[in-house]
């Protein structure tokens, strides 16, 4: 791909050295491994140097280990926060603090949001203390049908914590038709032309769609590049599959409100779907088939599913979306998989990611109760093998205003 993952992982390793040399031991947990071991009761987890070293009953805690008593509480891999503008958006309505979209109606596949990523955004601690350890930075709502490029990112607060390959975002359907002369048929026409230009030597003219940089960027996806199609209507989903087939892309469907109608085709093509688990209204004419058992039907048909929302600040609500999908027929463990191992596979985070086992990255959450239940919360999040401080700007505000009748103005209360 365009950015070689190996290089950037090395960069990440240089920066995030804090976890190195640390040992952490979780005692007596109910471990949802999300791997071949399924659910393990009365189980311990040993973490060293940011990686999971062993998982099993009756392990011995090394003398130097930081020990967390789980007391039987559920433990899962860190949850996936969906496709968001995490670190790209501070206040949605304030244009100056929003970098997730290119406001241009030209096709600019070379636009890559990762260069705008700010790990110091307040949204990141707010999200990660709720049990979400990674997200995909999306460029899916830009001014043109090719949103640009994004990439998965760990919410560990480092500058270069990108994971997996770079991704391309394409937005098709009724709500994008204004960007393509009013017809979704023109969307595929333009996208086909762009793919033809990509990597070609055709001379620039007023009729060409892409810049020289854009051609190079798009050419990088031509064989097996992962392309996220934001699309809802069943017929458009099938068009996306055809398009991906024509150009040998590796498609992911995002939105997928009517994906259940073409579940068999998606399963046969092995194409995963990221859905909004709470969508059940005909919000527009692409979403007339919205229903709460979309996840259950897709899963039953053999489609790999994950969840994504509409709003960066509300990413923590995905847990509730997964819970509702389970309440509407999705098997419980499939609901957990949709938050962990499924997205890790969809976005190619690497062997073992999204599971607790086999030397995977130690991104782990200890929950107060059922991780998909609205009355549960993340008690402790572990990122890169390190127990993070469970603090955000919101918890500080809470702690400033919790005391009743303080002696001094609250500005003097600095939790």
């Amino acid at each position, binding site marked *: 791909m365009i950015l070689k993952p190996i290089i950037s992982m090395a960069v990440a390793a240089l920066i995030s050295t804090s976890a190195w040399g640390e040992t952490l031991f979780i005692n007596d947990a109910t471990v949802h491994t999300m791997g071949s071991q399924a659910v393990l009761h009365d189980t311990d987890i040993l973490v060293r140097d940011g990686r999971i070293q062993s998982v099993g009953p009756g392990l011995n805690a090394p003398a130097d280990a930081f020990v967390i008593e789980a007391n039987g509480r559920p433990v899962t891999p860190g949850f996936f926060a969906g496709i968001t503008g995490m670190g790209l958006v501070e206040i949605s309505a304030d244009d100056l603090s929003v970098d997730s979209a290119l406001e241009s109606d030209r096709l600019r596949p070379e636009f890559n949001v990762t260069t705008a990523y700010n790990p110091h955004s307040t949204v990141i601690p707010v999200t990660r203390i709720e049990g979400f350890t990674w997200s995909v930075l999306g460029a899916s709502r830009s001014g043109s049908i090719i949103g640009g490029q994004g990439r998965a990112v760990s919410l560990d607060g480092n500058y270069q914590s990108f994971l997996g390959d770079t991704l391309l975002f394409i937005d098709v359907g009724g709500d994008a038709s204004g960007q393509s002369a009013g017809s979704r048929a023109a969307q595929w026409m333009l996208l086909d032309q762009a793919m033809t230009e990509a990597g070609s030597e055709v001379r620039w003219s007023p009729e060409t769609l892409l810049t020289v940089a854009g051609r190079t960027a798009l050419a990088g996806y031509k064989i097996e590049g992962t392309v996220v199609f934001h699309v809802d209507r069943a017929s458009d989903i099938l068009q996306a599959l055809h398009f991906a087939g024509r150009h040998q892309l590796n498609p992911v469907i995002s939105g997928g409100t009517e994906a259940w109608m073409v579940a068999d085709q998606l399963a046969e093509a092995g194409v995963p779907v990221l859905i909004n688990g*709470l969508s059940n209204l005909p919000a527009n004419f692409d979403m007339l088939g919205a229903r709460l058992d979309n996840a259950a039907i897709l899963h039953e048909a053999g489609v790999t599913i994950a969840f994504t929302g509409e709003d960066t600040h509300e990413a923590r609500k995905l847990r509730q979306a997964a819970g509702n999908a*389970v*309440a509407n027929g999705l098997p419980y463990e499939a609901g957990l998989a949709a938050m962990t191992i499924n997205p890790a596979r969809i976005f190619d985070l690497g062997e073992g990611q999204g599971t607790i086992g086999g030397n995977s990255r130690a991104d782990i959450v200890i929950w107060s109760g059922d991780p998909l239940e609205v*009355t549960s919360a993340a008690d402790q999040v572990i990122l890169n093998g390190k127990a993070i401080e469970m603090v955000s700007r919101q918890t500080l505000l809470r702690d400033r205003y919790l005391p009743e009748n303080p002696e001094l103005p609250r500005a003097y209360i600095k939790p």
Partner: protein
Amino acid sequence: MTTRIIVLAALTLFLAIHPPAWAEPYPSTYTPMTSSPVLIVNATILTGTGERIDNGSLLLSNGRIVSVSAATDSIDAGDAEVIDAQGRWLTPGLIDVHSHLGVYASPDIDAHSDGNEATAPSTAEVWAEHSVWPHDPGFNRALAGGVTALQILPGSANLIGGRGVTLKNVRSNSYQGMKFPAAPHGLKMACGENPKRVYGERKQAPSTRMGNVAGYRAQWVEAQKYIQDWETYENRKNGKRNDRNDRNGESKVPKRDLRLETLAGVLKGEILVHMHCYRADEMMTILDMAKEFGYRVSAFHHGVEAYKIAAELAETGVCGALWADWWGFKAEAYDGIQENIAIVDRPEGGCAIVHSDSDEGIQRLNQEAAKAMSRGQRAGMDIPPERAIRWITANPAKSMGILDQTGTLEPGKMADVVLWNGDPFSVYAKADQVFIDGALVFDRADASRQPVSDFELGQQLGAAK
């Protein structure tokens, strides 16, 4: 015959108020669906009054709650149908004080954008009910989530957006057929970013928060004058002199003004103010303004910073209609915390409401309340379910002026009831059955009791089978 005389007498009384309130011109035509008596036994009952009854029974008859009790043996249920609710929970019907169903209907197309008359900063003359599309599929989704009554409000583009209407969540071809009998009108007002942005971008007032406040005050001054003009007129008509220099018998009928009529209704306590306001400092300004002009704010809506002034809200008896976890979508929502509802609820006299402002949130008010409850508990507050249920039943009913009719399970009240498949404070909870005025209006297990809107009928017939 007798009824007609009473109605006429009431009307005469009504018209004698200055200025004339003009008898309700778009009256409710709602009549409950037919029902027969139902006795629900062995249920865990959250009454909405702060009480929890385990293994309780509830008797509904003639559209009313007859009894709520801890044991079945003392009830004379007559020929009531008996529902065994072993393992299930009963609550009052859920109430949403802030909805735009019908005025921003699904599908969300331009043709359905009827919620903001964003053409002038004060449009107190518009009524949300005149925009309500009764076939919005969102009403049925909300019903499946246990919502039995809701207030439809205009949007927040304007300082004064217009009148809200309270509806029963029943199906009809008109909003009049849904209109909650005898519920007072609401008035939507808005603080902060929205009005100053909408009008500031047009280079007109208001473009600042101080411009907002000047804008409301000018409206109230006009409304005071309007009331006075009508009083003067009525006095002269009745032969009373308004002051020493006043001469009798020389008065013209003041011109009727729909905008001022609404504002006068607020100043006279007949219309309840529902004020969109995020920041604590702005809410404090509004409380002073209400004192200045002698009216009450019924509830601050959204109030993302309400937790900063929980004591002041409780003291003035103003409710906070809030979200469980929305934040960050604009600057005035930047300080949102998940304990907001619990903190507003904490002081003596505190009145917290979980509201939706969303066609998704209204379907899951119980889940939103569950999140707020558990966050409060984690912060050390003792909030049992029987307390938290008030946030989505009694408290919204109180703020809408309908608590004497619904919002709790008490004998004599409307039989607006939800039977849940388990503890409603759970992501897995579902409404098994919903009763409005004693009629079974939704049954999860019976498709014949699941309404479908005209819009959704036959949408996917084209697909190959």
